[in-house]
């Protein structure tokens, strides 16, 4: 990595076992003030920034190989993410949202990452209570895996607030992914139901259309979201019944992809 070379080139040796921290007497802002140091490094004359950035302990900000090693060892449990693989056209090829024989078209989306026992058909009706919440959580997890499998980077895997121009309240997306081809962040809405209608929300759709047109901002991370995607999981639905038709067409007009699935791990047709 570049910063490794940077460290090897610039960082000065430090005390054993603590190569990052400068000694207390070298701290740039410790003590009672700055004193003239004849050894203090200077930017060579002739450069536009000559004479600048020479306070303190000089040299360069130490990028500690020790810290990097320690952090790496401590965080062994996290698998390396494939950040360079080519994106497929998961989002783009579905953006037309064509309807074919009553179903929304999509490419075949089959994930082997979600075991079948994550999904309990019928439980949302039979159990009531918190079951729809649980099934939705599983549906979102399956959708996240689907995007990850297709080399989209998972930027935020939880519900996240996105400020949308013209709206006082934020739009909450189920998760955010980054398209590795163009770098766009995409807010994904997951709808789950059993033998029921996929019901769209008027205010959500209105915000989605604005996000597609003007973008929105993730409140906590100061990043812009420039795309929206829907994934539905509807067990037992032969045909997609999306209400209202007016809202569905609004999504289509904004070229918001609408991917329909049966249960987490597969999509129709």
């Amino acid at each position, binding site marked *: 990595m*570049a*910063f490794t*070379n*940077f460290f090897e080139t610039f960082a000065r040796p430090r005390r054993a076992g603590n190569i*990052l*921290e400068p000694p207390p007497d070298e*701290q*740039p*802002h410790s003590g009672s003030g700055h004193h003239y140091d004849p050894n203090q*490094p200077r930017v060579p004359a002739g450069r536009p*920034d000559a004479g*600048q*950035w*020479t*306070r*303190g*302990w*000089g*040299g*360069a*900000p*130490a*990028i*500690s190989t020790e*810290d*990097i090693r320690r*952090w*790496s060892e401590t*965080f062994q*449990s*996290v698998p*390396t*993410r494939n950040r360079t693989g080519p994106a497929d056209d998961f989002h783009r090829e579905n953006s037309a949202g064509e309807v074919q024989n009553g179903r929304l078209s999509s490419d075949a989306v089959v994930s082997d990452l979600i075991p079948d026992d994550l999904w309990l058909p019928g439980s949302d009706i039979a159990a009531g209570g*918190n079951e*729809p*919440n649980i099934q939705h*959580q*599983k549906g*979102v*997890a399956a959708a*996240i895996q689907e995007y990850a499998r297709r080399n989209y980077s998972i*930027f935020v*895997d*939880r*519900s996240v607030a996105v*400020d949308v121009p013209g709206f006082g309240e934020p739009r*909450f997306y189920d998760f955010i992914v*980054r398209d590795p081809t*163009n*770098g*766009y962040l995409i807010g994904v809405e997951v709808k789950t139901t059993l033998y029921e209608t996929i019901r769209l929300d008027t205010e959500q759709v209105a915000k989605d259309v604005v996000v597609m047109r*003007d*973008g929105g*901002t993730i*409140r*906590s*991370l*100061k990043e*812009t979201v*420039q795309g929206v995607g829907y994934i539905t999981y509807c067990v037992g639905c032969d045909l997609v019944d999306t209400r209202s038709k007016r809202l569905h067409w609004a999504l289509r007009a904004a070229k918001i992809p609408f991917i329909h699935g049966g249960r987490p791990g597969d999509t129709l047709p």
Partner: protein
Amino acid sequence: MFDEPSLRAALADVGYRRVKRHLYRAEWSTEIEHFIEFHLYGTPKDYLAADFGLRNKEAETFADRSIKAYGGPWTKLIRYDEQTDFCIRFSLGKLAGSWGLRSSLTISSMPGPLLAKKVRDDIEQKLFPLIRDVTSLSRFMSLLATDIEPFAWLYSNAAMRAAMIVSVAQRLGATPDDVRPLFEPHFKGIAYGISDGRNPDPRAYIDNIMRDAASRDAPNSMSASRT
């Protein structure tokens, strides 16, 4: 039901004090402030996610001004609260590795005190070995510059992170030439951060913010001297 009093007490054990609803700041913060922020979601709100974050207020403010000065029109949408916002943040649940789907704990699955204990234990055992000693500008600089999990640039606005590095490095006495190589692997991400990916110029952005840091002028007053 979310048992916030238990969580608040457990966090106090490890040195975090409540700042506002769901936001806690480490009492042991120095010029590098440490935060934990919780997020409740679901219908009903049965899932608890958490971010841990770090902030040097001067660097964060510089980054906010930088991206608003040189970023795309969408940056005008950014809401920034100098008291409580921090954008160098990562998922605590993901770091812990045992929080369940979407790096979240299910509130109804365990008693409140047990949930609070788990959060506290994960902070102590998983988070502290990584960040507890990041209390100086130099260590913060290392953390910002590194691109390994859990601090990968992937999860940050790279343009803001670059601006923070410039701000911190300048105070540590680095020269622009020392710092510039750090950004080369991240030009793509920086471009995403300052624009919409269509017309980015990360090198010009870096030059601009380095000049701003050196002159200590507010970036948003230097639009006339953009590169």
